[in-house]
């Protein structure tokens, strides 16, 4: 048992206080409070963990360890695929550091939690605004799990058990979708792409959709960064067959791209990390979940949602959690989802971010990203032997680079780039061998012209001496 050790986080660890309290409780030692834990389970030793350290020691140790990493400040990194480097305005950081917000929990007591509630209501409203929907929840874990939940929701609404999704989506998203849907007996069927444009193959969609199809899912932009042009047609096909239309988005594209609500999406999911949240090595992320204003949909929606209401005396407007009867703590095994803790603080960051950008900023940022993407594609296209992009449609943020004709592997190119202090794109070789030696590159507003030029020049140098 622990000797008197006073720790800064544990006010009552002072022996005198402990003794007084032990007396009040009416036992003779703290161990007595564990008397109902069977003896055989008492841990007879200390946990094999490091000894407690001072704050100063911790900082030195952890910062030294973290310094082994290299970051986007050390080298340009052209990685995206669902988590992308963006500038986070200082005002966003200032707000999410407010401890009244970050040290609170789920607003079970709305009267002392109006700040969080209103901020989340504003987040929901802004998500609705950019996606052109009317309803949103206050977050899912990430895009992948939001997609899993969306497909489950569609099957509950349609009483059907099949979903059609593009074959070319992020492999991790596809795996997550499988994990979420398999236990419910849902069959996920992949739909291929048109060879030239890389977009969803409409004929294949038509051939596969049936009266068993609960949902048609597309991503816009697609995993390969392509902007889907047949969205109205796809929506029509889905709805003609009584299926729901689910669209996955990059929210930063929605300043320039038609929003999914305008092409009749029933449910919108997406990755909100780009909205004012740092990459953090892939977590926390921010799962976007929105839908049409339709009570049937709303009742089946997963997760927490904040609603506007009034005080009991009717005098004042306020906010509280709404529709809790869908949720696990009330509906239990018949809940629309098991989600409890979500990514609320990331949603607050997203709200502050979108409020700062406003409609103009969001459009300008979208345009900037498109310009940089195009420019990067142009520069890389100048390199001999590089096939870029594989498909003809317009691109947003991400694009494919193929090295087949250069006689180099993605791996070789990556190694050489890294030697030149550049981190190339994500290899698609293992997940999509059909694309040959191809990598997925990502450019955003954080990549300067200089970064992009250097990438182009370095690729030229690396691939110049091709066989």
């Amino acid at each position, binding site marked *: *048992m622990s000797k008197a050790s006073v*720790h800064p986080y544990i*006010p*009552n660890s002072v022996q005198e206080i*402990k003794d007084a309290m032990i007396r*009040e*409780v009416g*036992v003779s030692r703290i161990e007595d*409070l*564990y008397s109902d*834990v*069977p003896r055989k*389970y008492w841990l007879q030793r200390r*946990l094999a*963990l490091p000894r407690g350290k001072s704050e100063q020691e911790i*900082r030195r140790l952890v910062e030294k*360890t973290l310094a082994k990493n290299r970051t986007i400040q050390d080298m340009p990194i052209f990685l995206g695929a*669902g988590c992308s480097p963006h500038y986070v305005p200082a005002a966003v950081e200032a707000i999410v550091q*407010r401890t009244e917000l970050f040290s*609170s*929990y789920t607003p079970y007591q709305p009267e*002392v939690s*109006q700040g969080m509630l*209103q901020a989340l*209501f504003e987040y929901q409203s802004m998500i609705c605004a950019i996606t052109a929907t*009317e*309803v949103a929840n206050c977050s899912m*874990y990430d895009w*992948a799990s939001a997609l899993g939940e969306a497909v489950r929701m569609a099957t509950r609404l349609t009483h059907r058990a099949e979903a059609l999704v593009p074959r070319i989506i992020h492999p*991790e998203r596809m795996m*997550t979708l499988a994990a979420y849907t398999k*236990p419910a007996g849902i069959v996920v069927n992949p739909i291929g792409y048109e060879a030239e444009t890389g977009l969803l193959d409409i004929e294949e969609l038509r051939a596969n959709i049936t009266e068993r199809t609960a949902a048609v899912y597309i991503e816009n932009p697609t995993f390969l960064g392509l902007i889907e042009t047949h969205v109205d047609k796809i929506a029509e096909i889905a709805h003609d067959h009584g299926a729901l239309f689910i669209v996955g988005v990059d929210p930063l594209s*929605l300043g320039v791209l038609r*929003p999914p609500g305008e092409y009749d999406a029933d449910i919108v999911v997406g990755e909100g990390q780009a909205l004012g949240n740092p990459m*953090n*090595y*892939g977590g926390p*992320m921010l799962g976007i979940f929105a839908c049409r204003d339709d009570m049937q949909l709303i009742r089946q929606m997963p997760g927490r949602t904040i*609603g*506007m*209401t*009034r005080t009991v005396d009717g*005098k004042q407007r306020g906010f509280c959690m709404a529709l809790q009867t869908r*949720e696990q*703590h009330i509906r*239990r*095994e018949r*809940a629309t989802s098991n*989600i*409890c803790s979500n990514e609320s603080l990331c949603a607050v960051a997203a709200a*502050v971010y979108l409020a*700062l950008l*406003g409609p103009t900023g*969001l459009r*300008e940022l979208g*345009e900037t990203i498109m310009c*940089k993407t*195009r420019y990067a594609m142009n520069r890389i296209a100048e390199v001999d032997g590089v096939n870029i992009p594989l498909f003809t449609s317009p691109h947003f943020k991400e694009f494919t680079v193929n090295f087949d004709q250069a006689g180099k592997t993605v791996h070789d190119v990556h190694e050489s780039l890294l030697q030149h202090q550049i981190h190339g794109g994500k290899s698609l070789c293992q997940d999509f061998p059909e694309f040959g030696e191809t990598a997925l590159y990502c450019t955003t507003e954080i990549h*300067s*012209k200089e970064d992009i030029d250097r990438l182009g020049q370095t690729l030229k140098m690396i691939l110049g001496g091709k066989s």
Partner: protein
Amino acid sequence: MFRQARWNERLIFELGWPGRRGYVVPKVEKEILEAVGGLKTLLPQELQRRTPPQLPELSEAEVVRHYIRLSEMNYGVDSGFYPLGSCTMKYNPKVDEVIAKSPHITMTHPYQDERTVQGTLEILYLLANWLAEITGTFEVSLQPAAGAHGEFLGTLIMRAFHKSNDELEKRTELIVPDSAHGTNPASGAMGGFKVLVVPSDEEGCVDLDALESAVSERTAGLMLTNPNTLGIFEKNIERISEIVHKAGGLLYYDGANLNAILGKARPGDMGFDIVHMNIHKTFGTPHGGGGPGSGPIGVSKSLERFLPIPRILFDGHRYHLDYDKPHSVGKIRSFYGNTGVLLRAFTYILSLGAEGLEAAAEVSVLNANYVMKKLMKIRGLDLPYALERPRKHECVISCKRLQRETGIRALDVSKRILDYGMHSPTTYFPLIVDEALMIEPTESFEKKELDRFVNIVQNISSEAYSTPDVVLKAPQNTAITRLDEAKASHPRTMALSWIMYQKRNL
């Protein structure tokens, strides 16, 4: 007297002025623009957004003031006592926040070459090992984003395990006690299981006879919180484990209450096969107003092969991400877990060490029993179940008698507590206690604050018997008075967004 800020702050959509901006997007370099043209040349007209989104237009200063005012209308752990039972509202150490803001973590991408993220991988590898040691499990996966996410992953592992024994077809039932948190049955259902509920006995523990008759060759597993949601240790855990395992099921540990037994006893040693931890509870990371949290799971040796991909390996020189796990259940999210949160847990454990974690457990239990002993004496309040037994980190008090004698319900008590400048306990959970107040002081608050809480509840009891109106009208000192929560969920008055509010003309 407590007075929360009352800004009557408008919605951000009602603030600002057309043309104002809060952030300037850097101009695209001239050469780039010349080379690629603008949006017009890049994006065909028909794919472009025609009407700009209805986002607010404010200057940076206005945005900041708006959200600062909102934050002033929010109560957090740094504001004061926050005994929200089951949620383990601990102090969030400031050094954790400083370290978590390091660009060495925030500005790294999950698909970076392993050689460029050795620092992060080292930390995650060590943390996973420490969590395995703390829980007595064989291997830990850091991937789940929250406790419920870990539970869902747990059900997938149960499926994979039974499938590997060719038994998935018949093992269709998951058992949970009636005192379980809602996520347990909900996770079971998401995992495709039929959920069976077993009652608690008069001691507040799993009724062994009921459990005996609930298990069968259809049993996939049992989900259990220990100490349970009454704060009572399931002292028959050995027998429970035997019953479940003999029936061929797996035992799942809901780690929401792990704080009570840190360094004292380990779920793995008690026979639990799968264990989740709520990092945001037990390891002091901020709850963020509802997340992000993190919910790693640890499993026994025989289940290790089912954990999600990738896992982190160390070859003595370097850390690697290993995807070679043919039996894995795959993935339940993108990337590797809520790294930003996990890093804070790492620094938290470094600060406390083995000894400090044990001290945290002990003091959290001492605090809970101290508060319980005092509350029991208050008129109108009762301690349901096992009067003579100590609680662990939390206790559940019933206001049923108070309600009967004064009409004041647990809800009213909780609202009145807010008036005194404290957060209230969890109410109406667990479901097996009428008019429940679930109190978890944690180790983070000083005796004086506990005494103040007890005094407040004492006052409220007196008020209930003498001037019940004061309690019924509470809260008055908060940013807003009592809210009509039903209205928020009624189809006609529901407004879940600004656009919905405008459309419905509310």
